[in-house]
């Protein structure tokens, strides 16, 4: 059974078309790097898989079923992480809030819930974060805490929306390694969106490139080529391979690093929805 399957699926945000007639299938246990320019629809795709955005036409299947809100087999790390600056909540309470957080009544965690949190924190080596208040954590520590939270409940599919954003190089590597290790061990399918391809090169099985309302899934060799990316970016793209790194260039500039491309093609992108 495929973990994620889109068949001629069209996704809209309001009146704005984000993906049109997209078809691809992610196999169970695959690590997929989700790439594409700003506004290409990485977040929208994940929200559709979570059942937060209706599918306009075509079909979307997640683990063989229609996407629906509150699906417990999906672990999710959202991109817009609203953390109030002065929030003095312990890491443990922060994670505990998500356990059965949709049920009415008083909060509280069961012994089993506590054990699950401990196990998840242990899996990413972050036991000490349970006792520390969120306001005193660095960006990397918060990210690890959120990652631990996403692993609770033994998900079969992990949707990680830009988990590397605002992290320094060392912490980026830590996050990638942790995701890779835990998900390989447990056979979890991962959709990992990022701005830069190179960090994920050694880890990902295949890459899902979004752009120009289209989606292309394949190996790096198949997808990260000048013809395919030129279509997705809607402009002439050069792909330069050097020392095991891949650079996606437009008019001599590295588009992943500068991120200026979307300024030339603002009409293609949805600025209400920062990706």
């Amino acid at each position, binding site marked *: 059974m495929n973990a994620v399957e889109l068949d001629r699926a069209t996704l809209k945000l309001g009146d704005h078309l984000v993906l049109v007639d997209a078809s691809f299938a992610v196999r169970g246990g695959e690590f997929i790097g989700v790439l594409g320019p700003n506004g290409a629809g990485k977040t929208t795709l994940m929200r559709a898989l979570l059942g*937060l955005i209706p599918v306009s036409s075509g079909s979307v299947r997640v683990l063989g079923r229609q996407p629906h809100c509150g699906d417990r087999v999906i672990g999710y790390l959202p991109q817009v992480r609203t953390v109030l600056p002065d929030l003095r*909540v312990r890491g443990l309470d922060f994670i505990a809030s998500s356990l059965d957080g949709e049920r009415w009544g008083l909060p509280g965690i069961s012994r089993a819930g506590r054990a699950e949190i401990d196990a998840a924190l242990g899996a990413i080596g972050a036991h000490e974060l349970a006792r520390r208040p969120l306001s005193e954590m*660095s960006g990397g520590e918060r990210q690890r805490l959120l990652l631990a939270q996403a692993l609770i409940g033994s998900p079969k599919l992990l949707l990680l929306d830009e988990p590397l954003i605002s992290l320094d190089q060392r912490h980026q590597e830590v996050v990638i390694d942790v995701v890779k290790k835990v998900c390989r061990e447990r056979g979890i399918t991962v959709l990992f969106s990022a701005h830069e391809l190179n960090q994920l090169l050694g880890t990902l099985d295949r890459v899902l490139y979004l752009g120009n309302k289209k989606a292309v899934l394949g190996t790096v060799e198949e997808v990260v080529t000048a013809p395919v990316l030129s279509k997705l970016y809607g402009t002439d793209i050069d792909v330069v391979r050097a020392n095991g790194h891949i650079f996606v260039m437009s008019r001599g500039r590295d588009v992943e690093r500068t991120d200026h491309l979307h300024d030339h093609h603002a009409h293609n992108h949805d600025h209400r929805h920062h990706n």
Partner: protein
Amino acid sequence: MFAYEFMNNALVAAAIVAVVSGIVGYFLVMRGQTFAGHALSHIGFAGATGAGLIGLAPIWGLLGFTLVAGIVMGALSERISNRDVAIGIVLALALGFGLLFLHYYTSFATQATALLFGNVLAVDRPTIALLAVLGAITLVALGIIMRPLIFASLQPELAAAKGVPLRFVSTAFLAIVALAVSACAQIVGVLLVFTLMVGPPAAAQRLVTGLWGGLGLSALFALIEAVLGLLLAYRTDWPVSFCIALLSALVYFVCLAVPRRARRHAH
């Protein structure tokens, strides 16, 4: 001192209101919606004076206006805290209407100070009963939505993905805040609800990071400030609301000055 019935009534009323304010206020601070709470109390002022104009007791106007305003605010947006300008303008307009209503009902003007700054010493037994009922409704309702409220406050995106009805939860919460504000205004007045609803929880969060500990400490701070404020006012003949405001600020700044544990993780 306890020989005076008005003093006993005041102590009981202040204690009820303080505990409710400390607990509801904890979530107001957690959600970063303190300004919305402040605005609700000002809107309540217009309601209270308006009620006077049509011959009702001010408390009903206060309750009605804050409740409707809370529900409207919650329904309009789940992130009220980002709408400071809109809230500020509505707040000012509400105070303006309060003034207009006073203008047309001049015999009511003597009560204006009581509404704005509270008049706990005038609380009678029926008012205590009303406050107890209000407090009970507030706490029970908060208990029902507490779990999803915390989830939605800390991680709104994830809560939505897990099926928490964000808009309903935030609307219900602001309705609860409206009830608490109405009760609180009976003690310290609409202008000073911050003293019991924001000061104690903000101070408690500086000291304790656990949920239940924080809630308990917040309620305890509010209780101590309200009761000590009354006693201080009795001794000094200063206004009660001033004494409570003074103690609230004092506790907050003392807690602010408590040094954080040394940061063990610099990275």
